[in-house]
């Protein structure tokens, strides 16, 4: 069993407390408190992709209501003292060079306590109710529930009665940017950190609803620096281009369904890029998940970046944690204590020490990320997996619209409904 000593990232103020929450009366996100609670609810409408793979948004070229819903509550949460530090005080810069890696000096993000032992050789691990999970988070850290509406319009209810297991959006109390949130699908179902098509689709729908190329979602599998074994995606806004989005690509597959698959070229981490093309989100998610299941089955950790309003999805298999456990990583790189998860791989690197931030160069970023990349041999296997899973037949009947929220029902409370 491979382990590493790691200082975990705190994403919730409840992460450090080990009290149990049975009949807690603490307004948490568990089955004791959610059913019957009145919570903010965001209903996202169905968005059609036109024949050019672009979202036919009524909010053309402008910020969406989702931006207001997320960012609007941010200042309030800040005033309530829920964040461990003020991310707007963190110095950020673009490293000179061709790709423009983004470095941030963030001394507050990693807890300065005794490090825990973390098992890194198992991508699939069963859910452990004793460990921290998102049902233990307080409702004050929640922004809203995120469900699909039954037409093409989006709605926002500030006080809707919730029944069933909602998808929740919570703040990340150790943000790396303004608006850094966590999306937890079906929080009460206590799904461990692995992907299925329906939960993955939810993340893509959120990217589409945000309608901004600068709002991105990310996923880290276990072994690829996921902190918590309870299914969640991260998301935040950054008004700059990620280096990986500028990297050249080579087309390797133009699927008959219309989506395209590329291989990253001239980038330190080997990766695969999916573009929705003339396909749709459901088909795209189906085929990507096939590959992810293959990776999970082969115990290969991976990270996923959802960018460009959901139309571009990057898949990065990685092996840094394993290398670290085997003592194969360069000492200088290790000393910067950067855990290369999806944001780092995409080019947004959070540094803990001032001297690392001041000395940071594109060359350092390249060296760090080169250690993350799987070997040529493993990557070739993965490419083969991409091709073989592309041959599977997509079953449209499996993806009925109500798949996302089959047993969530809610009642509106009349006022406070804002149709957007």
């Amino acid at each position: 069993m491979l382990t590493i000593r790691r200082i975990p990232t705190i994403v919730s103020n409840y992460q450090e407390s080990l009290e149990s929450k049975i009949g807690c009366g603490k307004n948490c996100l568990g089955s004791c408190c959610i059913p019957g609670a009145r919570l903010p609810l965001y209903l996202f409408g169905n968005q059609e992709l036109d024949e050019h793979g672009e979202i036919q948004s009524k909010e053309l070229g402008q910020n969406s209501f989702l931006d207001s819903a997320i960012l609007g509550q941010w200042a309030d949460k800040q005033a309530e003292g829920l964040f461990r530090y003020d991310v707007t005080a963190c110095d950020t810069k673009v490293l000179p060079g061709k790709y423009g890696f983004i470095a941030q000096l963030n001394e507050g993000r990693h807890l300065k306590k005794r490090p825990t032992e973390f098992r890194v050789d198992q991508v699939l691990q069963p859910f452990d109710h004793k460990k921290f999970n998102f049902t233990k988070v307080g409702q004050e850290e929640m922004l809203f529930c995120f469900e699909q509406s039954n037409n093409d319009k989006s709605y926002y209810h500030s006080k809707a009665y919730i029944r069933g297991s909602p998808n929740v959006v919570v703040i990340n109390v150790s943000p790396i940017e303004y608006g850094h949130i966590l999306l937890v699908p079906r929080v009460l179902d206590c799904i461990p950190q692995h992907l299925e098509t329906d939960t993955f689709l939810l993340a893509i729908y959120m990217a589409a609803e945000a309608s901004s190329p600068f709002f991105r979602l990310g996923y880290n599998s276990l072994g690829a620096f996921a902190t918590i074994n309870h299914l969640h995606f991260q998301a935040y806004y950054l008004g700059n281009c990620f280096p990986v989005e500028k990297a050249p690509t080579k087309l390797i597959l133009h699927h008959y369904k219309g989506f395209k698959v590329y291989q990253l070229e001239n980038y330190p981490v080997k990766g695969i890029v999916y573009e929705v093309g003339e396909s749709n989100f459901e088909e795209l998610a189906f085929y990507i998940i096939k590959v992810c299941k293959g990776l999970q089955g082969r115990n290969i950790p991976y990270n996923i970046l959802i960018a460009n309003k959901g139309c571009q999805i990057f898949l990065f298999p990685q092996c840094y944690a394993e290398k670290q456990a085997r003592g194969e990583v360069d000492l200088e790189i290790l000393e910067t204590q950067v855990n290369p998860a999806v944001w780092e791989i995409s080019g947004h690197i959070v540094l803990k020490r001032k001297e690392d931030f001041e000395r940071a160069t594109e060359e350092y970023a390249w060296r760090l990320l080169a250690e993350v990349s799987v070997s040529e041999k493993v990557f070739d296997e993965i490419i083969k997996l991409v091709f073989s899973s592309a041959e599977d037949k997509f079953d449209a009947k499996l993806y009925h619209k109500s798949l996302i929220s089959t047993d969530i029902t809610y009642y509106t409370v009349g006022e406070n409904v804002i149709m957007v």
Partner: protein
Amino acid sequence: MALQNGSLLSSDRKCVRSPRMKNHKLIVSQSLIRSYRASIQDELQKHAYNFVLCDPGLPDHPIVYASDGFLEMTGYSRDEVLGRNCRFLQGRDTDKRAIVEIREAIREERDCQIKILNYTKAGKPFWNLFHLAPVFSQQDGRVVHFVGVQLPISSKLAARKDGHLTGLELSFDELEFEEHFDNPSCKNYHLSEEDKQRAFAAVKAVLQELANSSCKGVSSMRSKSFSEGVIPPGFVATSLLLALTRIPHSFVLTDPHLPDMPIVHASLEFLELTGYTREEVIGRNCRFLQGPDTDLAPIEELRSSISEGQTCTVRILNYRKNKEPFWNSLHISPVRNSSGKVVSLFLTHSLKCSPFQVAYYAGIQVAVSHSSEEDEGRARMQQLGTLGAIKVAVRSIQTGAVLRKSKTIS
């Protein structure tokens, strides 16, 4: 999400305008009048090039001028393209990376020359040698417009060894529409020096025309002092401007580092709410919105919050340009940029001295009716959402302008 059958639709492409550009004809003509003489349209008409002018200070970076050649090439009418973003030229097989490169060049305020697959109104693809160049104001260093020149390429051109063509007046009919865009001689067609020079020449000619016709001074290069690091007051980088124009609400950004804290940016909705034009508000302090019946109490509250670098919300009676009063739920807040700990001159003498760089003070307006509390709640949500979006916009690291010397066409 409804499932599509994935078949290629052959109908005419939809050309959608931002919903905020309701008075697009007026807005578009104002964009030209603001910087050039009234005769500019006639002057530009004389050139047979295919090109457009776009204004990054308007919502969705729309086209404000399109040459006849451009319209002929793409098959649209002038009315169909004015006020719309150029993305209608892109389609299914347009390389996403080419789009990213153009977007980055815009954000970094520099030239870009790139081969990109575009589509006519009828949906026919064609390879386009696209050249983008910024037009800088001599006054405040901002990018006033972007010029985009298009030179369609075909395999016919690729095949011609002698390369003899009559400049950019090449009629589009000469290009073979039936060619499949996959035609290898197109894809692998390496742009010859001649092509590149032709595009350069077109851009140069257009820029020259704009410079000659400008009333306040524009050029293809920034002023010498700017390149040496002397940034004029009230300068707003294009990347910030593009992010700010995405915010569909009324707000202003004021600069607390300049005397009397003037407005440096006002959203389209602010101008529509107050009835002023951009020129009438940029550079002035917001107090011009106050009038005879405005109470002193909210004014004092604003003043004291600003001197302490605090946020506050007040309900204040303001006046439109036509003297009509309206109740304004005004929320103000300091906004930081991405850099870290620089002591701001503005706040040094304040007791609650913040060590962090305050880049701007944002003011967000929501017109409310006198009474209702429900209005207050709704206003609040809108204000905070807008403020959050402003913070994200200002926080993004401004590339171009200050950090990079703009490339110029010599």
